[in-house]
């Protein structure tokens, strides 16, 4: 199953990574190799096998619904690319 350049551009868009047509060509070739590798796994019979998403069978730990975090905005925003009035600045989203 080889990827088309449209596939690659679609994935790049989903991943929000701009890629040039030259990069797309190179990426395509390498991705095809990787999907060849993954193909070996797809051939295995896994009927009835429960997927394993974690090393340990643990439930999500619960805690009391109490505020435990302090306000560290100044520290976290110290090196932000663009901040004003404690808000992160980005280009206009809504017209």
């Amino acid at each position: 199953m080889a990827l088309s350049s449209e596939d690659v551009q679609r994935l790049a868009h989903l991943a929000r990574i701009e890629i040039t047509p030259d990069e797309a060509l190179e990426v395509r070739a390498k991705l095809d190799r990787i999907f060849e590798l993954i193909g070996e796994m797809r051939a295995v019979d896994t009927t009835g096998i429960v997927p394993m998403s974690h090393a340990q069978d643990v439930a999500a730990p619960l805690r009391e619904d109490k505020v435990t975090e302090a306000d560290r905005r100044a520290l976290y925003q110290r090196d932000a690319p663009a901040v004003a009035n404690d808000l992160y600045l980005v280009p206009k989203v809504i017209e």
Partner: protein
Amino acid sequence: MLIAPIAELAAALAKKRISSVELTQEALDRAEAANRRLNAFITLDRDGALAQARAADARIAAGDATPLTGIPIAHKDVLMTAGLRTTCGSRMLENFVAPYSAFVVERLASEGTVLVGKTNMDEFAMGSSSETSYFGPVRNPWHLDYVPGGSSGGSSAAVAARVVPGATGTDTGGSIRQPAALSGVCGLKPTYGLCSRYGLIAFASSLDTPGVFAQTAEDCALLLTAMAGHDARDSTSVDRPAEDYTRDLGRPLTGVRIGLPTEYFGDGTEPAVLGAIDKALAELRRLGSTTVEISLPNVKLSVPVYYVIAPAEASSNLSRFDGVRYGHRAAKYSDLLEMYMRTRAEGFGAEVKRRILVGTYVLSHGYYDAYYLKAQQVRRLIADDFRRAYEQCDVIIGPTSPTTAFPIGDKTDDPVKMYLNDIFTIAGNLTGAPGISIPCGFDGKGLPVGMLLQGNHFREALILNVAHQYQQATDWHRRVPEGYAS
């Protein structure tokens, strides 16, 4: 002095034969010299380290020292260190100064260790050679044109070159154990959940595991004892009673059953590697253990399974790097979408982008079942193989890597060639079980060979015991590359 392992340095510090300031000074000098040839460090913190060293000396004088107080160490640059740059080897975080420290960093600091600097690594921990770093490749101290392994190559090279006697790493698919093997040092990946991932910049959350590099199994045990522990800030952190991982080091190996997977000793592994492992097994039998052939029929599927799961998780974890709150932001963009697309195109290197794209694909509509779900099912098959194997043996042993170190640039054309480096280590991440790689010989080029000892979940004390006993009877772990022995 820095040629000695931690246990010896601690004794020298206690007896006041040397001070932490002297030790740290030496480490910093060696780091600077080594960096000119090895590029093992991204950031060195001279002032911070010397201040910590002075504090450590005061603690030692006050009789308040731990076995690690005053010891210079380094952290892999994927672990957050408050006030110090933390880059993950990436342009995306080139100037990012961490606002808080990782749990394992805090733990080691509270023991009184001295942080010399942050080590170089494959970008965002994605790699097996430490060649993809934005800051340039790391070189193997045993042969400067060769890779030290990856992704924690800076840490393994720093310990191999005796810059620091201990360094942290992280292991998601083999990134501690494989560079340990290629660099000729000990590298321990603990059980998943034993060391908190808080402050470890995430690559693949179900696989990432903080761990250590050192010259000896004993030193690994000392460092692990300090680093392990429950942390409520990591929801996958296990809550179990604290262990002293040095407690069983001295046990004789009589009665220990070593499992040898047929699949680990076949084609595809260099003869020199197999030869060194055979000699090591003979030594382990001489020390009283028995060996039994076992089979892990699905273990070869580890690599494809990993290259679905890890990129999938990475594509999710790395979506936070969007130029909004921290890290790189593109200079030119006309709208928000372009800001995201350019920031990420500029900030990430080629391998990281590839893996994000693979991950995006396997999680996308129409492909999730065929890829991601399928991989999780095969993961269960692999885990079941290991579970069955541990009914017949206590420890599983084999080569850490199918080859010794390779030349820089050798495997960068075909990603799959690079991925196959991890064929023996990846299963340990998929199952979450612990493993340690220790030196056990050299090939014809003088490059180190590593032996991988794996145990069942939470059996770190056992694999450290086997490693330590082997190291009492052999001296591979004492070898130092030329130019770094004094």
